[in-house]
């Protein structure tokens, strides 16, 4: 095995590890993860500190173990049938932990994947709200934004798809009962909402990124603690899993450069 030093660790490695941390402490819940870093994060967690996590094949099955990215379907070991109709049973039961992507995310944790601009005639129609409204009021949800900028981190999203803290509170106890926006992970850092008024806080910066970089790339005022740690590096085991097992072709480094 080749020896590694901290300088060999790529930004995408930090992102994958930050995504894995989303699942720390989870027992038997269904991990769903969109994007390359989240897909790797769920697998890393499953293979290390969250061994009871339940992964999907991205189609209609739960799979044993943690298959590498792009693993041929014939190599998968199925645990259970999970067609979409049953996925909703899981969503509504709360036994799910999800990392979605966000075209826009705002200060109180609203996410938008629906449309940019006015509703009746949007500047850009995106994919649609999908399951975001239901996911966010039923189970833990985090977000992955691989292109952190003032266009993606905005004061107020155009169409609230995933529900943030202020909107859930305004909607009442049925909306807040199971609402838990855990982390936002971007290509620059990690964020949460562990503030008294539930607004976004900087948790850690990925090595090579400064707090000023993040402030400049964010379209609203972040809560920034006096001391902001670096995002933790992968352990030797995690790095080996990423490089040799889960993503030997380095797809993660194409999603996030630097």
């Amino acid at each position: 095995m080749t020896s590694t030093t901290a300088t060999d660790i790529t930004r995408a490695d930090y992102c994958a590890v930050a995504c894995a941390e989303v699942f720390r402490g989870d027992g038997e819940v269904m991990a769903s993860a969109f994007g390359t870093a989240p897909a790797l994060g769920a697998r890393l967690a499953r293979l290390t500190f969250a061994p009871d996590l339940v992964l999907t094949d991205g189609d209609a099955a739960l799979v044993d173990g943690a298959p590498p990215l792009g693993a041929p379907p014939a190599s998968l070991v199925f645990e259970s049938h999970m067609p979409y109709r049953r996925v909703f049973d899981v969503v509504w039961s709360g036994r799910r932990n999800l990392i979605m992507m966000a075209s826009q995310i705002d200060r109180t944790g609203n996410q938008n994947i629906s449309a940019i601009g006015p509703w009746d005639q949007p500047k850009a129609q995106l994919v649609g709200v999908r399951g975001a409204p239901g996911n966010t009021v039923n189970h833990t949800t985090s977000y992955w934004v691989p292109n952190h900028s003032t266009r993606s981190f905005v004061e107020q999203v155009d169409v609230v798809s995933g529900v943030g803290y202020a909107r859930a509170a305004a909607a009442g106890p049925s909306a807040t009962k199971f609402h838990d926006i855990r982390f936002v992970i971007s290509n620059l850092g990690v964020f949460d909402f562990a503030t008294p008024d539930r607004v976004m806080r900087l948790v850690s910066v990925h090595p090579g990124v400064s707090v000023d970089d993040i402030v400049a790339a964010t379209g609203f005022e972040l809560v920034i603690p006096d001391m902001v740690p670096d995002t933790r590096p992968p352990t030797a085991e995690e790095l080996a899993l990423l490089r040799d097992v889960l993503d030997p072709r380095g797809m993660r480094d194409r999603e996030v450069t630097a």
Partner: protein
Amino acid sequence: MADKRTTLDEFVASLSSGMTIGIGGWGSRRKPMAAVRAILRSDLTDLTVVSYGGPDVGLLCAAGKVAKAVYGFVTLDSIPTDPHFKAARQSGAIEAMEVDEGMFYLGLLAASQRVPFLPTRSGLGSDVMTVNPSLRTVRSPYDDGEELVAMPALRLDAAVIHVNRADVAGSGQILGPDPFFDELFLGAADRRFMTTERIVATEELAAGGPIQTMCISRLLTDGVIETPGGAHFTACVPDYGRDEGFQKEYVAAAGDPDAWAAFVERFLAVDEADYQAATGEAADERAAAKAAAKAAAASKEGA
């Protein structure tokens, strides 16, 4: 047992402009595309289309058939969005009822169960409730007193789905891993159509797969239409996967009015048999172009 076999022409003739039509499948997977193409060739217009949206919604928008779309998403799966649907929304050409995809499921389920709504937490706090001002909440009559979204029944004038196998009496078999919500589209509809890759004898269904694959009962169908390749270019596993090359051609053509006119003339202004022949030829052309490019690259390398 009644013989429910019918044709795409009779299917279209049974519809009328202004109807609400449900389309089975999910994204760019097992869409009843032959039925959609038959609608494209008709003079039907002003439709409300209810769909886990894929190229069915895009094509119907491109042809000006859609007054309103009811959906949770419109995607081509391997390509995130459909260009024609995007264009229709961005020009304000269609009315949109965009809801959470779980709410959509409950809307079909409510219609299937003949109840006016079903309660759900999904939608609370989101803009689904503001961009659809007709949506209401309901308070639990029990001690919890919870206030939940009352997802209204999505009642359909007609629905059409596509399956792998069916018999003449209207039992259907889905051999792929996910039956999606096809059963509920039929349950929610007044006129219920099922297109199929192949019509087989009833006793052959069990030979094709386990009992769970025989998930569409004849209680849910009025008409069965044999349309081999009828989900093309969407996926219809295990019979065939998505035609990614053709889907790319569809998206590329959408970006240019002349290219789109040529696409329509070659693939959509023709009947189903000619569509199947033309898309087969297009696949051959793409394969030949790829081989030629590879050969050119190889000779360049050798030089």
